[in-house]
């Protein structure tokens, strides 16, 4: 009860602060503050075609180039985590272990779901190469992003697997004007960035080149442990875009990108009784090629054909420092080809129908999988919109996926938006989503050489057990028959509901609220087989077992106090729980034991606080100053992350004790910049002003850092 009350009070507080400011004037619209926005911002993610943000019946958040520039940050994840409801989340296995490098990094938690449940797109096409479900967002250079669109809630009806919690679509700049832009960035930890942008437009041809070099020496949060917390790295990004209009009706867009990164690893291992240092590196290569042809047959019919190819490689090797012998080697190679045809029918805004068919051919190879795997998948989608009496927008959509590994997946979506008054609209949507079992869960074939346990992906279980038995690693008297045969995992499935409203006061102050609920079934988890190997060690595999829900709401208020000052306030409340745990609590099956007194007692429903690694309360506040005439810009941004569960201490493996939390913290960032008439811009900033650090639990957070950026826009060089 008290928790609910607290929330109501917090909610009222947020609302009160909305009302207090609502009588002032001036407007901004999205998270890119400081620019007087008219309501014509265009997004592409929700319908796969350009669409004004005002018309969209789902929750969508747009991060503008302006906002990205104002942060001064070179790291995409830092920019994302300053948005309402986008929370930085470390993979539970991704924390540094005794100086061992962090292998997975962090991702974005959306609507309380782990990073693996958000689809990451670049210009509408998926990126491959996830390690333990996390895609290294450092692969995306910040320098040529036009805007980032974040859909919250399931978007599987358009994008297929992984879009359960939502979609983050990074849209890069399109060639518009002849321009040459050069940037130099310098930041703490010996971080350097050099960026060059060149656009050439001649008649029907538009060309754009982008190059970026980024390097950082990493940092060390714990001198007592050999090696750095985050190792030094160096990366390069290149992209080329070619747009050509054959006729007014036929246009061609082609783009290629390449990213390479080398991270230098240096840590201690044990080969005998004494530690020895190893060093080596992890190399990542990510490439993509996207080819699109647009045929505008008439005002009513448009056909887009696309061919997308992408590949990802990760190769890591470390050598003993003493004799340069190879100590450990890991690799992951992934490749995807995706042809697709999309048809848009309809003329009027908000009356269009979009349909498409496509095919995925995918290969994956990794040292921990038994051999190279090949898959293919076919999909088609359809989305139709109606606008009734200029007030009610109805969108119905759905998608079918037929993958070679699992049964046909049908995912529908329905969305309604209603304009109650010129400045007030409400919207609601319901849709399903799915996530294909990841490759680890299906194909892992791994025995730990030090301890001796074995992990088998569900598809390898049958073969793996037979082999272990043949090799005499399982006692001959054990009956393994119950575990032979087909163990194909089912996709994880969800239903998501979002209901929200938007209100504009004097067209100057904007409020938005969205209430969400996601129910996820068939979540895959690891389990122990009921027998062990002859060495006494366990055999693990994966099974569809858990059901969880996440629910909450987010609120944003944007307001311009006057021509110069504006602010943006965001808050998210989140409640995420495991339904199996709730029913086990109800049946008095969960007992806890205090780690100090050793007293045991039953866990009650009120004591269960939900899933680990989720903050009930998160909030952000951004205050901005902009003096257009003189080119001055300044901002201060605060991010609050409420306390979140870290690990169990009382023997019940659930979050139900105050000692199981990481304390809440605030990050404060600030930046100031001046744009000169010559086109030269200089920016200085500070991040994590309060110098918050936690070497064990927040290894991805360096202390206070400073940055300086210089940018020059050389106009009409050609």
């Amino acid at each position, binding site marked *: 009860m008290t928790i609910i009350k607290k929330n109501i009070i917090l909610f009222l507080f947020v609302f009160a602060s909305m009302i207090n400011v609502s009588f002032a004037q001036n407007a901004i619209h999205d998270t890119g503050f400081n620019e007087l926005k008219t309501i014509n911002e265009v997004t592409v993610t929700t319908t796969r075609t350009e669409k004004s943000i005002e018309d969209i019946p789902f929750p969508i958040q747009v991060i503008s180039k302006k906002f990205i520039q104002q942060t001064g940050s070179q790291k995409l994840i830092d920019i994302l985590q300053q948005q309402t409801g986008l929370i930085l989340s470390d993979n*539970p*296995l991704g*924390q540094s*272990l005794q100086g061992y490098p962090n292998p997975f990094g962090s991702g974005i938690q959306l609507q309380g779901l782990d990073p693996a449940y958000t689809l990451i797109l670049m210009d509408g096409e998926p990126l491959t190469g996830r390690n333990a479900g996390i895609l290294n967002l450092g692969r995306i250079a910040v320098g040529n992003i036009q805007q980032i669109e974040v859909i919250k809630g399931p978007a599987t009806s358009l994008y297929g697997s992984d879009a359960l919690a939502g979609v983050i679509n990074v849209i890069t700049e399109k060639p518009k004007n002849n321009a040459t832009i050069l940037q130099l960035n310098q930041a703490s930890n010996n971080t350097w960035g050099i960026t060059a942008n060149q656009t050439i437009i001649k008649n029907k041809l538009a060309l754009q080149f982008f190059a970026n070099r980024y390097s950082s020496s990493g940092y060390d949060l714990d001198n007592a442990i050999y090696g750095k917390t985050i190792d030094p790295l160096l990366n390069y990004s290149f992209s080329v875009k070619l747009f050509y209009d054959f006729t007014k009706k036929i246009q061609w867009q082609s783009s290629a990108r390449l990213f390479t990164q080398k991270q230098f690893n240096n840590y201690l*291992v*044990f*080969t*005998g*009784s*004494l*530690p020895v240092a190893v060093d080596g590196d992890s190399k990542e290569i990510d490439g993509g090629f996207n080819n699109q042809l647009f045929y505008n047959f008439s005002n009513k019919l448009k056909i887009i054909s696309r061919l997308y190819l992408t590949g990802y490689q990760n190769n890591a090797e470390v050598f003993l420092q003493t004799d340069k012998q190879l100590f450990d080697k890991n690799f992951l190679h992934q490749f995807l080809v995706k042809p697709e045809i999309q048809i848009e029918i309809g003329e009027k805004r908000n009356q269009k129908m979009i349909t498409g068919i496509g095919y995925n051919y995918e290969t994956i190879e990794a040292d921990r999988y038994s051999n190279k795997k090949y898959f293919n998948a076919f999909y088609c989608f359809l989305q139709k919109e109606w606008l009734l009496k200029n007030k009610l927008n109805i969108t119905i959509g759905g998608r079918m996926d037929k993958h070679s590994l699992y049964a046909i997946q049908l995912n529908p979506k329905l969305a309604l938006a209603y304009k109650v008054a010129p400045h007030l609209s409400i919207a609601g949507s319901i849709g399903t989503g799915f996530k294909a079992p990841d490759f680890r869960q299906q194909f892992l074939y791994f025995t730990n050489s*030090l*301890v*001796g346990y074995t992990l088998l992906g569900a598809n390898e279980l049958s073969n793996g057990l037979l082999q272990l038995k043949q090799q005499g690693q*399982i*006692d001959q*008297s*054990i009956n393994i028959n119950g575990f032979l045969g087909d163990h194909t995992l089912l996709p994880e499935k969800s239903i998501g509901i979002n209901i929200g409203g938007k209100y504009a006061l004097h067209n100057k102050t904007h409020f938005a609220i969205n209430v969400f609920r996601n129910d996820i079934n068939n979540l895959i988890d690891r389990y*122990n087989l*009921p*027998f*062990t190997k*002859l*060495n*006494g*060690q*366990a055999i693990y595999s994966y099974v569809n077992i858990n059901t969880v829900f996440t629910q909450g709401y987010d609120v944003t208020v944007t307001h311009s106090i006057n021509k110069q000052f504006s602010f943006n306030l965001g808050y998210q409340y989140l409640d995420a729980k495991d339904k199996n745990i709730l029913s086990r609590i109800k049946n008095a*099956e*969960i*007992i*806890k*034991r205090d*780690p100090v007194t*050793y*007293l*045991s*007692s*039953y866990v*009650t429903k009120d004591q269960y606080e939900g899933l680990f690694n989720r903050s009930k309360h998160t909030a952000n506040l951004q205050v901005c100053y902009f003096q257009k005439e003189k080119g001055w810009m300044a901002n201060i941004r605060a991010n609050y992350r409420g306390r979140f569960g870290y*690990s*169990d201490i*009382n*023997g*019940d*493996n659930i979050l139900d004790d105050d000692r199981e939390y990481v304390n809440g913290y605030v990050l404060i960032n600030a930046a100031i910049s001046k744009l000169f008439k010559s086109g030269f811009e200089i920016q200085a900033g500070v991040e994590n002003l309060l110098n918050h650090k936690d070497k064990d639990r927040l290894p991805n957070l360096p202390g206070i850092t400073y940055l300086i950026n210089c940018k020059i826009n050389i106009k009409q060089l050609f």
Partner: protein
Amino acid sequence: MIQASMIAAISVIIAFSSCTRNATTPPITSIEKTDSLKVNFSSSSPFAFFSFKNGAIVANSDSATLAWDFGLRFTTFILNSNAFGPGNAGAILQNNIYTAVTAAPSTGYAYDTTTSQKGIKDGSWYDYNPVTRSFAPKAGKTFIFRTANNFYVKMELLAVDYEAFIGPIPLRLIYRFRYTYQANGTTVF
């Protein structure tokens, strides 16, 4: 909270009543004790044998006698019966609060039918945390043993820690546990 305090109250009552019973019928037959046991981590090293009656570790040379009740290595329990010893030991892993277990069942004791099919299933009583690499004994799991000599014991694992080590693999785990040994041969604790 109410439930927790009620349970605490109940356990006080149980403790109190067992005291009065002990006071009226000497000598004391029920021994309650907290103990710890150092156990080899490597699956190829010897088991550590334990005797409830003496509350002490038993030499490996006595493995073929009735002197021990259970053996422990890494997270693997063995029992002194069938595949591993001459005794009549068996075990039940009950989902219950230790203090709430007032009597041992008369039947249903599992034993090691073969050297790899154990009475106490590995992984049934702990949660492994891959981040801290800890084996945390699950709360609310009470082991009920019949000893090699047909006496009854209830036991709760309290903690499993690594002994300080240098090297790639820990050498020993330290198990902390409490148990009540009923020396009068009955099933009542």
